[in-house]
């Protein structure tokens, strides 16, 4: 087990290095031309460009450039160009509470409801409730987040002021308002995942229910509810772990750009959106590295959880 752990952690570090290098290639090397001009942005003068060229090491070999970029990223010396002197690291840090709150809340909701919906759908397969859920799931999957988010905001927060109209309130400042402000974004973000996971789980359950070991459990006289939970669901949920790990990591890493922007949460995702709009390269690089970290990290976590859930792939 220890060997497995160490190997996975070493692997994770290697992947992170590879990812950071790819990010460097994508943003600095591949586009061609002078990266300093791109980084300097639209309103730069010659002196700006010259400074950047020197500062980022663009007049030196590519590995020095990569090293400079990483040094900046890890020592919080990546500066925005649009607002001179604002550190990218600080901006991301500021966005983290909102983004994490959104991610954790939405993930809880979508996991809970997708399991509920998937189980109901599977055990009533072919009947009315299953068909209804199937339709709702497809509707949920098909609705774009920005559209659903804007509709929810318009009807539930502006026309009828049931919910507060966007913005994030820190948990430490007012937990009740924090919860209240996040309720709409949580559900809007969760809808897509509920539909998708619900469908996947339904299929998994229907496959598992026909497994021989489920028949064995029934032949033992085990209570049907226990058969469903301990034998069917326990095995059907294993593939969901992969999906969930990566989707959750994506949202944690600022991937819920649309939800954050629609509800004006000032999270990492919204920061990414603003940087893209301003074509501000340093923050884009920063946010990309930040997001990539979570994806890689949670892939590793998924591996561990998988090994825990499925003894067949557990190292002995």
């Amino acid at each position, binding site marked *: 087990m220890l060997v497995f752990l160490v190997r996975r952690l070493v692997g994770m570090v290697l992947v992170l290095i590879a990812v950071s290098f790819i990010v460097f290639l994508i943003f600095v090397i591949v586009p061609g031309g002078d990266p300093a001009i791109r980084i300097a942005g639209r309103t730069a003068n010659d002196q700006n460009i010259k400074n950047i060229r020197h500062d980022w090491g663009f007049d030196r070999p590519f590995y020095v450039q990569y090293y400079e970029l990483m040094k900046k990223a890890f020592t919080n010396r990546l500066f925005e160009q649009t607002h001179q002197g604002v550190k990218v690291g600080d901006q991301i840090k500021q966005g983290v509470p909102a983004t994490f709150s959104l991610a954790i809340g939405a993930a809880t909701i979508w996991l809970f409801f997708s399991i509920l919906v998937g189980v109901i759908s599977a055990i009533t397969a072919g009947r009315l409730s299953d068909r209804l859920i199937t339709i709702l799931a497809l509707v949920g999957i098909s609705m774009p987040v920005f559209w659903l988010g804007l509709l929810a905001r318009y009807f539930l927060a502006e026309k009828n002021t049931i919910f507060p109209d966007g913005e994030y309130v820190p948990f430490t400042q007012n937990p009740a308002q924090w919860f209240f402000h996040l309720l709409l974004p949580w559900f809007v973000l969760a809808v897509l995942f509920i539909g998708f996971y619900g469908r996947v789980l339904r299929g998994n359950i229907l496959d598992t229910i026909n*497994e*021989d*070991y489920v*028949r*064995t*459990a*029934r*032949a*033992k*006289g*085990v*209570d*049907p509810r226990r058969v469903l939970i301990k*034998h069917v669901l*326990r*095995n059907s949920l294993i593939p969901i772990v992969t999906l969930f790990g990566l989707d959750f990591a994506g949202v944690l890493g600022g991937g819920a750009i649309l939800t954050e922007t629609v509800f004006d949460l000032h999270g990492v995702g919204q920061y990414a959106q603003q940087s893209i709009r301003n074509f501000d390269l340093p923050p884009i690089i920063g946010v990309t590295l930040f997001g990539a970290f979570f994806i890689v990290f949670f892939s590793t976590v998924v591996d561990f959880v998988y090994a825990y*859930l*499925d*003894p*067949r792939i557990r190292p002995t």
Partner: protein
Amino acid sequence: MAEKLLEVDDLHVHFTTEDGVVRAVDGVSFELERGKVLGIVGESGSGKSVTAMTLLGLTRGVNAKFDGSIEYKGQDLLKLSETELRRFRGNELAMIFQDPMTSLNPVYRVGAQISEAIRTHEDVDKRTARNRAVQLLRQVGIPHPEERVDDFPHQFSGGMRQRAMIAMALANNPDVLIADEPTTALDVTIQAQIIELIGRLKNDFNSSVILITHDLGVVADIADDIAVMYAGRIVEYGAKRQVFYDPQHPYTWGLLGSIPRLDRAKPEKLASIAGAPPSLINLPQGCKFRPRCPHAFSKCTEHPPLQNRVGDSPPHLDRCWLTVEEKRDLRELTIHGEAAA
């Protein structure tokens, strides 16, 4: 006379499908006394597995229709509710399945799965159940059961898994053990061990066994009675001695003829029964074996009842219109092929 444990009378199991009604079991009757082994033999699709699973109520579902009765110690299992039936399942009637590779849940330890069987029917704590699981694993011949009890199924070989399945089935000391092709998925050398084990444990636990197989060779040693099934019906039913040495139905002849024999001249080609079993949706009229039977004649379009045509005691039943004399002449040819002719 020994205690009669199980009496199945005119059991019908029909499934409604999109293609029509599947008559999986169509009027099957048999009985089982304590301590006896009944072998049910037939090829795939003859309804033997459905019969077995129906005894435990495992075929119940919205598409299934049942008729007849399954009397177990005077109680009709077919009439019990699902909840009532669950008290019997795995407790008084237990089942071993065909494929031990997939019949154990891969995510739980073998011991935990045996304990689950115990704790489902008996109010004992985990420690006691676990100790009994170790004991059971020892009885079915798993070496070092104290350690192997904590193994996962994938750490067991196929034969060991089937032993674990047997341990699980015997966990509550059932009166009736139903083994549905318990050796089909195993190596030949392991097959004999498993059959021997079932026979031995049957005596230790004072149970009866219903052994389902497509291989007459498997039941040759262990069975007391044999029922040969074809297309959802029993076509021949009698004591093992009767069925092996005085087989009455051409289908039984075919089955016997397709067993490779070491004690006879080697035939050019191993005999087989031509054709395939009929669709259970569109059964032929009269004798269901007629289209494949080399001895079919005009009367075979009439439905042959299951009767003691030989007049033997205990009753030796068959469903064939041929006279006993005709059968004696014809069957040598079918069973032993040209060599004997």
